[in-house]
C-alpha cells in the first residue's frame, strides 16, 4: 500500500480532523492519523498543537506506530517541554521491555529529546541499558551518553556514565566498542577534557575490535587511533602493522582513515626501509580510490593532494592515473590537474605536457584555462622543461582561441619573470595577438612584457599607443601596468614619441583619475623623472628577483594539521577545522538560562561548549594542559573571547616544554608577589590538573622563561621564542615576541642568518589581525646580517582600524611576513600575549570601579591563583602588578582569605577588567568588556 495518500488532504479543518482520528477507538484509524500528522510535519506544517493527542498513542504494542510517535516527539518536544513529560512513563516502561529492539528504541529516542526535565528521567534507564545483556541495546546506550553529555554534562559526570562508557571499551562486542569510541571521542573533543586517552591496554582492545566491527565502526576506531601518540618507534610500528590490512578494505573511508593512522604513526618510525615499504603499500590503495564514485574521487583527490605535498615519493610513478577522462565531472578534472602539476618531473614532463595540450582544446573554458596555467606552472618549476612548455604554449596560441591566447600570455609573463632574458624570441608571436586581448589580466601581462622588453621590440611605442587609446576606460590593473610600461619605454628609448606618450599618461593619471594608487604611482614616476632621470633608470629598470611556483605550496604547519585531519572536511576544504566549524550547541543556550552563572564559576564540569572552545580544547590538549579549557568552558557564554585569550597563552608556551612553561608562568606570578616562594613548590601545586587553569599565562606575566620567573622582577629579557625555524626559513631563523615597552607595543625580533651569504633589505608586514596591530615602519633597521650572525630589533607597533580583522574576533594569531633581498618573502605566525595590550592608563578612580565592574558580564570572568600571596603581603606585590599595568582596586577579607580587585585596560580589545580574588593564595581574574 502507498503512504502518499497521507500527504494529500489539504482541506480546511484538517487539524481538527486529525485530532478526532487520534482520539478514535479504532486502532488503524489512529495509526493512519499519526501517519498523516508525520506527513504534514515532513512538508513543514506546524502540527505541534496535536502534541497531547499524539503522545496519547504512544503506549501501544504496534512497533510501527510507536516509532512514528517517537519521531513526532523528537521534533516537537522542544516546543512543548511541559507536555513532553507525559511521555516519560512510557519511555521508562519501554526501556524495560523484553524486546531489545524496544529497549534500544526507548533509550535512543529519549536521548534525542532535548528537554531538561526528560533527561533526569533518562538516567536510570540509561544506566540499565549500558549494562544490558543485549549488545544492540548497549551500543545504542553508548551513543546516548554522548547525547546526554551534550545536554547536561554535570549529570553525566554525577551518574558516573563516563566511567561506564570507558568500561565499554573492553566490551566483548565490537560494535559496542566502536560506538563507545565514537561517543568518548566526541565528549573528549567538545568538552576539551581528558576523558578519552588511549592507553596501551585500551589500544590493544581497540585494535582487536577493529578487526571485527562494521565498516563504520572501523572508521570511528581508526579516526581515534590517528590521535594517539605512540610511546616509541616500536609501539608505532605495532600499530602500523595492525592497521595496514585495512588498506585492503573495500570501503574507501576505511582506507583513507587507515592511511591517516599510518602517516601519523610513521612520524615516530625511523627505520627507512620500513618507511619505504609503507610508502609502497599506500600507493595502490590511494590509486584505487580513483575508481570509486565521482564524489568520493573528489574527496580522495583533495586528500591525495595533501599526501603528495608532504610525501611526493609515494605517488611519484603514478602520474598517469591522474590523467583526466572525458566524462569526469569538472570538479574531478580540476583536482586531477592540480595533482598532475605536483607530480610533474623531468622524467614524465613530456607525457604530462601532451595531456595538458589535449585539455587545452576541450570544451569547458575554465578547465582549458587551468590546463594552460598548468603548463606555465610546470615551466616555472621545472627549469629543464621550460623550453618544451613554451613550445606547447606557442602551439596553443596558434589555435587563436581567444581565451587560450589570453591565458597563455599570462603564464608566459610568469615564465619571463622566472627565466629573464632567455625566451624573448617568442615576443614577436605574442605581439601578433594583441587584438584578441580583452581581459584585464591578459592585457596587463602583455603590457608588462612590452615595457620590460621595450628595447628589443621595434615598434614597442606603437604597440603601447594602441593600448593607451583606451587608457581611461581600462581597469586599474591595466592602467597601473600602462603607466609603468610607458615609463620603462621612455627610459629605454628617450625619443620624441615616448616622451609625448609619457606626458599624456602621467597627466591623465595624476589629474583625471580617482584612483589613489594610480595617482601616487604616477606622481612618484613624475618626480623621479624630473629630478634625476639616472636614478629613475636605476629604480625602474632594476633587476627583479626571480619568482618561483607557489601555486600548490602550503604552509608546513597547515599541511601538518590537514594531514592529521585526513578524510575529514578539513582535508577537503584545505582549511583548519576551526575556520569552518560552527557548532551552536544547545548547551550554550542553556548556560544563558542559568539563574546564577556565578555558581558555575570555577566549576570544572563546564557547561558552555562552543566551537572556539573545542578548538582550544584541541590546542590545550595538544599542549598537555587539558584541564585548562574545561575550567574556562564553565565561565564562557562569550566563549570566543575567552577561549581565544586562552590561546594567547597557548601560543606563548607552545615552543617550549609546555608543562614547564605554564608552571613557570604560574610561579612567576607567585614571584611577583612573594619574591621567592620557590618554583618547585609552585609546580607541585599545579600538578593537579584542575588547579591549573589556562588563565595561568594569559596575562603573560611570566614571559615564558623559567629562569626569569624565579628571579622575580626579571630585568633581563628571556630569549625570544622561535617563530620560524631555520629549516622552514631557508636558513633564516626568526624569533620574536610582542611585548610592552615604555608605553608602546613593541615587537622584539631577532633574525639569525644560518646561510652562507649575507642578507639585507629586511622588511616586515602583518596580516590583518584581531588587535589591529601593524608595524609603524616596514623596514627592519638591521642593515645587513652576515652569515652566522644574529641581528635584533625592536619594532614599534601601531594599532590602526585598517588593520583590524573583525572576523578574527579576538584570535591572538598574528600572521607575519618578513622579506629580504636574498630569500624573498617568508611567512610565519606568532601570537599576541594579552599583557602586551595592557595600558598604563588602566588605573581608575576607586569610586567608578564598582559600577564599571558590575557592568561587565560576570560570566566573562576568568581567574588565576597567585602563588604564595597572603592577605598580609598584598601591599608587597602591588608594585609588581603595577609594573605589568595591573592595578589593585579593592581588597576585602573573606573567610578563606581576601578578595582583591585589580584592574587593567587593554588597548584595542575594548577594556579588560581584572578582578583579583585572593582566596588562600590569591586569585587573579580577567574580564573582557
Amino acid at each position, binding site marked *: 500500500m502507498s503512504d502518499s495518500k497521507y500527504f494529500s488532504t489539504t482541506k480546511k479543518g484538517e487539524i481538527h480532523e486529525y485530532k478526532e482520528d487520534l482520539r478514535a477507538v479504532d486502532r488503524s484509524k489512529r495509526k493512519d492519523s499519526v501517519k498523516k500528522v508525520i506527513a504534514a510535519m515532513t512538508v513543514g506544517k506546524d502540527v505541534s498543537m496535536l502534541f497531547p493527542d499524539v503522545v496519547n498513542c504512544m503506549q501501544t504494542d504496534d512497533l510501527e506506530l510507536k516509532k512514528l510517535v517517537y519521531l513526532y516527539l523528537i521534533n516537537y518536544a522542544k516546543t512543548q517541554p511541559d507536555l513532553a513529560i507525559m511521555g516519560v512513563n512510557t519511555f521508562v516502561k519501554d526501556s524495560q521491555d523484553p524486546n531489545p529492539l524496544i529497549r534500544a528504541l526507548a533509550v535512543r529516542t529519549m536521548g534525542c529529546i532535548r528537554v531538561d526535565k526528560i533527561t533526569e528521567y533518562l538516567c536510570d534507564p540509561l544506566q540499565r541499558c549500558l549494562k544490558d545483556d543485549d549488545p544492540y541495546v548497549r551500543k545504542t546506550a553508548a551513543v546516548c551518553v554522548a547525547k546526554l553529555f551534550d545536554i547536561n554534562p554535570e549529570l553525566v559526570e554525577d551518574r558516573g556514565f563516563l566511567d561506564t562508557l570507558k568500561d565499554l571499551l573492553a566490551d566483548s562486542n565490537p560494535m559496542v566498542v566502536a560506538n563507545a569510541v565514537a561517543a568518548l571521542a566526541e565528549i573528549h573533543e567538545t568538552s576539551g577534557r581528558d576523558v578519552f586517552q588511549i592507553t596501551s591496554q585500551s589500544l590493544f582492545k581497540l585494535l582487536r575490535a577493529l578487526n571485527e566491527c562494521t565498516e563504520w565502526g572501523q572508521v570511528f576506531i581508526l579516526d581515534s587511533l590517528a590521535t594517539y601518540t605512540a610511546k616509541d618507534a616500536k609501539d608505532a610500528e605495532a600499530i602500523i602493522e595492525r592497521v595496514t590490512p585495512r588498506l585492503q578494505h573495500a570501503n574507501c573511508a576505511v582506507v583513507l582513515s587507515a592511511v591517516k593512522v599510518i602517516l601519523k604513526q610513521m612520524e615516530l618510525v625511523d627505520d627507512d626501509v620500513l618507511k619505504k615499504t609503507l610508502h609502497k603499500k599506500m600507493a595502490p590503495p590511494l590509486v584505487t580510490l580513483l575508481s570509486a564514485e565521482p*564524489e568520493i574521487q573528489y574527496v580522495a583527490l583533495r586528500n591525495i593532494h595533501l599526501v603528495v605535498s608532504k610525501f611526493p615519493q609515494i605517488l611519484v610513478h603514478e602520474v598517469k592515473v591522474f590523467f583526466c577522462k572525458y566524462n569526469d565531472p569538472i*570538479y574531478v578534472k580540476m583536482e586531477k590537474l592540480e595533482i598532475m602539476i605536483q607530480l610533474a618531473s623531468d622524467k614524465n614532463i613530456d607525457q604530462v605536457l601532451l595531456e595538458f595540450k589535449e585539455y587545452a582544446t576541450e570544451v569547458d573554458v575554465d578547465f582549458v584555462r587551468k590546463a594552460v596555467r598548468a603548463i606555465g606552472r610546470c615551466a616555472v618549476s621545472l627549469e629543464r622543461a621550460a623550453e618544451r612548455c613554451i613550445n606547447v604554449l606557442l602551439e596553443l596560441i596558434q589555435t587563436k582561441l581567444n581565451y587560450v591566447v589570453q591565458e597563455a600570455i599570462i603564464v608566459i609573463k610568469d615564465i619571463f619573470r622566472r627565466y629573464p632574458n632567455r625566451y624573448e624570441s617568442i615576443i614577436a608571436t605574442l605581439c601578433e595577438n594583441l587584438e584578441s586581448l580583452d581581459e584585464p589580466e591578459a592585457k596587463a601581462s602583455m603590457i608588462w612584457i612590452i615595457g620590460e622588453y621595450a628595447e628589443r621590440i621595434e615598434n614597442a611605442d606603437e604597440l603601447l599607443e594602441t593600448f593607451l587609446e583606451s587608457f581611461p576606460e581600462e581597469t586599474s590593473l591595466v592602467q597601473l601596468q600602462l603607466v609603468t610600461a610607458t615609463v620603462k619605454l621612455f627610459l629605454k628609448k628617450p625619443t620624441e614619441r615616448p616622451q609625448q606618450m609619457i606626458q599624456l599618461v602621467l597627466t591623465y593619471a595624476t589629474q583625471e583619475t580617482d584612483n589613489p594608487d594610480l595617482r601616487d604611482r604616477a606622481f612618484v614616476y613624475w618626480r623621479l623623472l624630473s629630478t634625476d632621470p639616472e636614478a629613475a633608470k636605476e629604480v625602474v629598470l632594476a633587476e627583479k628577483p626571480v619568482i618561483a611556483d607557489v601555486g600548490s605550496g602550503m604552509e608546513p604547519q597547515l599541511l601538518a594539521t590537514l594531514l592529521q585531519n585526513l578524510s575529514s572536511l578539513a582535508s577537503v576544504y584545505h582549511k583548519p577545522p576551526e575556520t569552518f566549524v560552527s557548532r551552536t550547541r544547545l548547551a550554550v543556550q542553556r548556560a544563558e538560562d542559568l539563574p546564577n552563572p556565578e555558581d558555575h564559576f570555577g566549576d570544572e564540569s563546564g557547561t558552555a561548549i562552543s566551537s572556539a572552545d573545542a578548538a582550544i580544547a584541541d590546542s590545550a590538549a595538544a599542549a598537555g594542559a587539558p584541564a585548562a579549557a574545561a575550567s574556562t568552558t564553565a565561565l564562557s557564554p562569550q566563549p570566543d573571547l575567552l577561549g581565544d585569550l586562552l590561546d594567547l597563552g597557548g601560543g606563548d608556551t607552545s615552543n617550549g616544554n609546555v608543562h614547564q612553561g605554564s608552571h613557570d608562568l604560574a610561579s612567576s606570578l607567585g614571584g611577583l608577589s612573594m619574591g621567592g616562594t620557590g618554583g618547585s613548590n609552585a609546580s607541585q601545586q599545579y600538578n593537579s590538573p584542575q588547579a591549573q587553569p589556562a588563565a595561568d599565562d594569559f596575562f603573560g606575566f611570566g614571559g615564558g622563561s623559567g629562569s626569569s620567573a624565579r628571579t622575580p622582577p626579571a630585568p633581563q629579557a628571556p630569549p625570544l621564542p622561535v617563530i620560524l625555524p631555520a629549516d622552514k626559513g631557508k636558513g633564516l631563523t626568526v624569533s620574536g615576541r610582542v611585548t610592552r615597552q615604555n608605553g608602546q607595543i613593541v615587537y622584539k625580533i631577532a633574525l639569525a642568518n644560518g646561510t652562507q651569504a649575507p642578507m639585507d633589505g629586511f622588511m616586515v608586514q602583518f596580516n590583518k589581525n584581531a588587535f589591529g596591530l601593524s608595524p609603524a615602519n616596514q623596514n627592519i633597521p638591521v642593515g645587513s646580517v652576515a652569515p652566522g650572525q644574529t641581528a635584533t630589533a625592536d619594532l614599534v607597533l601601531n594599532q590602526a582600524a585598517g588593520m583590524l580583522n573583525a572576523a578574527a574576533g579576538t584570535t591572538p594569531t598574528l600572521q607575519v611576513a618578513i622579506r629580504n633581498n636574498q630569500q624573498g618573502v617568508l611567512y610565519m605566525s606568532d601570537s599576541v600575549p594579552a599583557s602586551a595590550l595592557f595600558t598604563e592608563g588602566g588605573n581608575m578612580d576607586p569610586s567608578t570601579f564598582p559600577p564599571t565592574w558590575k557592568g561587565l558580564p560576570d560570566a566573562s570572568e576568568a581567574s588565576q591563583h597567585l602563588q604564595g600571596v597572603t592577605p598580609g603581603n598584598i601591599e608587597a606585590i602591588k608594585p609588581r602588578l603595577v609594573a605589568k599595568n595591573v592595578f589593585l582596586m579593592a581588597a576585602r577579607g573573606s573567610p578563606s582569605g581576601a578578595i582583591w580587585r585589580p584592574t587593567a585596560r587593554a588597548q584595542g580589545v575594548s577594556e579588560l577588567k581584572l578582578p583579583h580574588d585572593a582566596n588562600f593564595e590569591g586569585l587573579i581574574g580577567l574580564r573582557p568588556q
Partner: protein
Amino acid sequence: MATSAIFILDLKGKVILCRDYRGDVAPKNAEKFITRVNELEESGRITPIINHEGITYIYVQYSNLYLVAVARENINAASILLFLHKLREVFVHYFNELEEESLRDNFVIAYELLDEVMDYGYPQFTEAQILAEYIKTDAYKMEVQARPPMAVTNAVSWRSEGIKYKKNEVFLDVVESVNLLVNSNGTVVRSEVLGALKMRTFLTGMPECKLGLNDKVLFESQGRSPQDKKKAVDLEDMKFHQCVRLTRFESDRTISFIPPDGAFDLMTYRLSHNVKPLIWVECLVEKHSRSRTDYLVKARSQFKDRSTATQVEILLPLPPDAIAPTPRTSQGTATYAPEKDAMVWKIKNFPGGREFVMRCRFALPSVPAEEESTGRMPPIRVNFELPYFTVSGIQVRYLKVIEKSGYQALPWVRYITTAGEYEIRMS
C-alpha cells in the same frame, strides 16, 4: 564528529524527508542548499561538498533526488559520502526504485530506516538484507514482533543465522573491465584493468569459504615451481568485502570468509601495467571539401582467434552540424544517433584476429557555425564483452565451502571481460 541531519530533497530543493539527528541545523537550510547549488553550478565551481553560511552540505544526486547530509562540525567526509551511497542502496533494496514517488509512497518505512542506519549522526548499520529482517515493508504481515537480528551487532554483521536452501550453490563471476585511453597520434596513454569477483551465494547455515587464486605473491611464498609461477598473476591493490578476514590475508594471503547471502562483490583488484588493447580502433579523416568529409574507421580485434567479442558497439562522434551522414560497413550495422552526435556501429560477433571497416561520409553546412572552432571532438568510445576471457589471466583454483552440516556446495565460475572507459581520442 557527526552529521547533524539527513535531508532528502527533490530537484527543486523541496524537502521530501528530513531526519534531524542533532537539532543544530534547521530544515529550512535545505532551501538554501538548492539555491547555493544552482549558483555554483552556473559559475562552474560545483563540488560534491559545499559550505554555506557555516553549514557543510555533502550530497549525492540520484534519479530525481538529492540525498544530503548536513553538518556543522569537521566530520569524516569520505565516510559520510559513502554512507549516502549505502543509504541509496538500502532504499533501492527496499523500494526497488528510488525516486521521489517511491519515497513518498514509503515515507514511514524510510523514517524507520533512517532511525536505524544512523544514530546521533554516526553511521550505524547499512546492510540492507539484515535490515530487512527486522524492518519490514509490510507491517501488517508481521505477526511476531521484530527483534534485532544477532547479525546487527555480531562480528559477522552481514549474515543472519538459520538460512536454508535445498540446493546449495555459489556463482562466481570474474568480471574485468578495461579502461583505455589512446591519444590521437595512436599512443596508448593509459590502460588499466579493474577486476571484480562478483558472487551470488545460496548457501545454508554459516558456511566457511576459502577461495584459491593463482596469486603470484602466494605462489612465491609457497616456493612453487617456476612453471606454476608463470601462470600466476600479480594483482595490484586487492580490495575485499568486509566479510573477508583482512588480517589473515595480510599474514598468509588466504582469502577466507563467511559470505553474505545473495549477491555481493567479494573482491576487486586493479592491473595497470601495460595491457594490450583488445579492440584497436583508429579513425582516418579525409576532408575533401566543406561539403564532403569521410571518416574511415578500422576496428581490429587483438585477442586470440578462438575468442569472440560480443555486443561490440563503437560510438563515432560526428560534428553536431553534420548533414546526412551515411555509413558503409564491412560488418555489422551503423546508425546515426543525432541525440548523441554520433554514429553507432554495432557488431554482434567480433572474432579474434579480424579487422572490420566502416566508412562514414557526411557534409557540413556551407556557412560555418559560430563556435565551430571551439572545442574538440569527444573521443571514440567502444563497448564490448568478451566472455570466457580475462586480461589478467586470473584463475579461480578452488572455492571450498565448509559448513557444519557438511553439505556439498556447487561452485559455478564464469569469466568475462568488458570495456569500461574505453576512449580513443580523435585528432
